[in-house]
């Protein structure tokens, strides 16, 4: 079989694999849903994730060790990952091919010539790695996820592509349509990078991709490489019509740019001037872009040195910490979290309730697209018996918890449950607190045992409920003093009692001037001429900060539909002792 056919099969395989892994991250009973699939495999194979988190945390987390395979393959065979594996690269190749359809020989050669801009990706790589490596005030800034193609494509598929397709077709994988705040930007950038291929094929790979740059730096040492078998060829430039890497195969080959697409070997070179071999090209090689000199490297690193303090000027890691930045359970302390999170969106896709969102810019530039809880979106807050997010996190920005540890039971009983925030009742909006209206939906839904939300009962006189008894007949009272709205007090929550207090009788029915109570009126309780008051039984919700875990089910369920009357903010979260409310929790 021709080598490019094998390459295409490999590319399609890994693209389908990516889509498959994103698709199966859906909770449910179907066989294709969440059944131990290695959904993070492609992220684990990404050496840039491994190297960048190694620089920022000085450790190499679990599955990231798989990326050694990629490094070794690159050392042996060159940038096979770019040309054969990377699903984002496959998409770019496909769109680049579309863009070249119907173009003539000269246009194709022009599209695939080497451009000086291809050095930019090395600067991006160095700047990002510099930021990751430099522990400014004790915390480095991992921003590699913005442009690393594997997190980029996962984020795009997880948060923009799949949900859009579900929305468009009306067929969601879960029972409810998934929503992600700010997903439009993620999707737009995805589309933008794909359309850029009409301008220059593989625009992203050649010019922007920091992973490509890293593999390019490695591939200059690779054992096998594309090489000319003679110092000069006929310069027919046929090989350049389909060169994915724009690496000048017919000249001094730019070995770091070669994507191992093998298009140039594929029967194109009629005279067989090109070969894949260990010996370097007879025409000579250009190992690295000439612009990547000492000056370029220093400029990139200097940029990263300036960028980190610049990103942090907002002070979101300090006093300007955003209270609604509620992180998923198991998230490390914010600085350590940001040293690990690569914004891949895996946690947001797997979250069964769709409560995890990509953060926008309000949580700080550094936190863009990192996971944050939005209790208004999704089916029901953060589920008490769920730890899915930490188990798909490729970098342990969210630690993989056991249910036991999350709930604080068994051997974790002493430390207690993981708290992600605390609920606060807004007394100005809460129906029982502010509007004499019974409710306590929050208390009902509070999932902790004992409940963190508890109620205090109050019998509160209602507005316009001061009456005088005119006559009594068994269960019926005729009253005056106010016109009562018919049936308004017939809900079982209203009582009538003497104005100064005393026996309360439950109202079962009312007309404009008569009340029916649930038992014959005791003679000693009320008599004709008694001043009475209608009172409503209210249960006012309170939150016990020692028990509240911040799951936000209360906020999700609160019937005050706009700005909820009970809301969770990040106070008291387990990962940050300085957010404690009470001394006992510090």
């Amino acid at each position, binding site marked *: 079989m021709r080598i490019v056919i094998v390459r295409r099969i490999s590319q399609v395989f890994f693209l389908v694999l990516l889509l498959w892994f994103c698709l199966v991250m859906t909770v449910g009973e179907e066989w294709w849903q969440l059944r131990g699939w290695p959904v993070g495999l492609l992220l684990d194979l990404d050496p840039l994730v491994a190297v960048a988190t190694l620089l920022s945390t000085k450790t190499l987390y679990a599955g990231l060790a798989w990326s050694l395979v990629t490094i070794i393959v690159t050392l042996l065979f060159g940038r096979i990952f770019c040309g054969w594996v990377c699903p984002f690269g496959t998409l770019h190749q496909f769109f680049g091919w579309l863009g070249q359809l119907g173009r003539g020989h000269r246009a194709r050669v022009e599209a695939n010539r080497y451009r000086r801009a291809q050095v930019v990706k090395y600067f991006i790589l160095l700047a990002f790695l510099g930021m990751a490596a430099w522990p400014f005030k004790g915390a480095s800034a991992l921003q590699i996820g913005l442009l690393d193609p594997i997190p980029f494509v996962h984020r795009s598929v997880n948060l923009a592509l799949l949900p859009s397709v579900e929305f468009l077709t009306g067929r969601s994988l879960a029972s409810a349509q998934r929503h992600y705040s700010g997903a439009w930007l993620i999707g737009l950038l995805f589309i933008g990078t794909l359309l850029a291929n009409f301008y220059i094929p593989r625009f992203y790979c050649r010019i922007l991709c920091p992973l490509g740059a890293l593999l390019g730096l490695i591939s200059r040492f690779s054992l096998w490489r594309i090489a000319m078998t003679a110092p000069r060829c006929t310069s027919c430039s046929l090989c350049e019509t389909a060169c994915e890497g724009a690496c000048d195969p017919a000249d001094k080959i730019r070995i770091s740019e070669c994507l191992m697409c093998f298009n140039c070997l594929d029967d194109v070179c009629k005279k067989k001037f090109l070969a894949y071999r260990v010996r370097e090209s007879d025409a000579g090689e250009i190992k690295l872009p000439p612009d990547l000199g000492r000056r370029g490297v220093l400029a990139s690193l200097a940029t990263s040195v300036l960028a980190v303090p610049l990103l942090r000027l907002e002070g979101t890691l300090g006093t300007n910490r955003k209270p609604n930045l509620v992180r998923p359970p198991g998230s490390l302390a914010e600085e350590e979290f940001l040293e690990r999170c690569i914004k891949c969106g895996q946690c947001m896709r797997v979250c069964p309730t769709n409560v995890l969102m990509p953060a926008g810019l309000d949580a700080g530039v550094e936190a863009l697209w990192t996971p944050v809880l939005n209790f208004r979106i999704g*089916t029901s807050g953060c589920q*008490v*018996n769920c730890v899915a997010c930490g188990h798909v996190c490729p970098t342990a920005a969210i630690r993989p918890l056991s249910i036991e540890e999350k709930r604080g039971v068994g051997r974790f009983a002493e430390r207690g449950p993981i708290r992600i925030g605390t609920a606060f009742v807004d007394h100005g909006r809460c*129906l029982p607190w502010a509007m004499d209206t019974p409710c306590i939906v929050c208390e*009902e*839904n509070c999932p902790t045992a004992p409940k963190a939300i508890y109620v205090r009962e109050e019998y509160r006189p209602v507005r316009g409920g001061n009456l005088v008894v005119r006559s009594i007949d068994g269960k019926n009272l005729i009253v005056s003093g106010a016109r009562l709205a018919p049936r308004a007090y017939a809900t*079982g929550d209203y009582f009538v009692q003497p104005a100064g207090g005393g026996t309360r009788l439950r109202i079962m029915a009312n007309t404009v001037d008569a009340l029916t109570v649930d038992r014959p009126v005791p003679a000693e309780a009320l008599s004709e001429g008694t001043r009475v008051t209608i009172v409503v039984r209210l249960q006012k919700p309170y939150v016990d900060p020692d028990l509240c875990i911040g799951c936000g089910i209360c906020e999700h*369920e609160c019937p005050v539909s706009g700005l909820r009357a009970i809301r969770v903010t990040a106070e008291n979260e387990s990962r940050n002792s300085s957010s404690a409310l009470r001394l006992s929790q510090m």
Partner: protein
Amino acid sequence: MGVKPETDLQEKKKTDLSRRRFLLRVAETAALALGAGFAYYWAYDPKGPQSLSRRAAELEKLGTWSFPDMPAAMAVVRGEKRQQAVEAALEALGGVGKFIKRGDRVLLKVNAAFATPPELGATTHPELVEALVSLCLRAGAAEVFVADNPINNAESCMRISGIGAAAERAGARVLLPRADAFRPFTLPDAQLIRRWPVFFDPLERATKVIGVAPVKHHNRSGASMTMKNWYGLLGGRRNVFHQDINTIVTELARMIRPTLVVLDGTFVMMRNGPTGGSLSDLEKRDTLIVSTDQLAADSFGASLLGKSVDDLPYLHMAEQAGVGTTNYRALEFHELGSQSS
């Protein structure tokens, strides 16, 4: 780029206005003007919107799944094995075949509100689901489906409560509350259930409806039993109804006239309900009720929580609304002793 002379000539020719061309141009202009006129006329709305929302309510009718001519009956069985208890209770009521006929499509409305394991008693017990599904299928039901619109995430609830697996093991299908499964419904003479989205899909399919609920403490309403269980058929921002919990429970009981209800008091959630979350919230009562009258079942169930009928206003309100009777002893009433294998 220079213009070639012949193109110049052609251009000139084109711009020459012959009669034929003139008429064509006039016709073209007139057709476009007329077309625009018609389009404007068709779309013209001199009054503007007459209401704040275009969304008109589609009103749907709900059936009755009870046997109005059959005298109401209730069986209370003591025993710790749910499967045997429910079988014995149905036997006492005349056998499951009296209620489920060949070819019936049966909806089991479970309480799957929370994503908690069955041991915590916040949801219908999977053993009971499995037993009921098997009984219905053995009685000749063509299809049994299990449904609820839970509070927590639906898939998680079905999975963690064990209800999904139990239903499928016994041969039933789980119907999830997808957005397109709801339709607005108005209950006649209702104050609350008006143009409200109801989980219509399972109700529409069903020829028989069985409600299956555990006995649970519920701070707002006092108790969550078979009548309150229909809350899980509502969609939308249904929590607003907690403002008038007794009325909504009464209206729900009026909305659904079930074939049977099964009230499970094997373990009763005495406090911290309706979520529970701790085994210490449960007390063993070893009691299971099967009834054709949901109000009678709940009236009996109140006693398992140590409450009287007077403590739960919705029981009296439902009685007044004609749902059934609180005086369950007036029914054909069976009380069976301990069922052991």
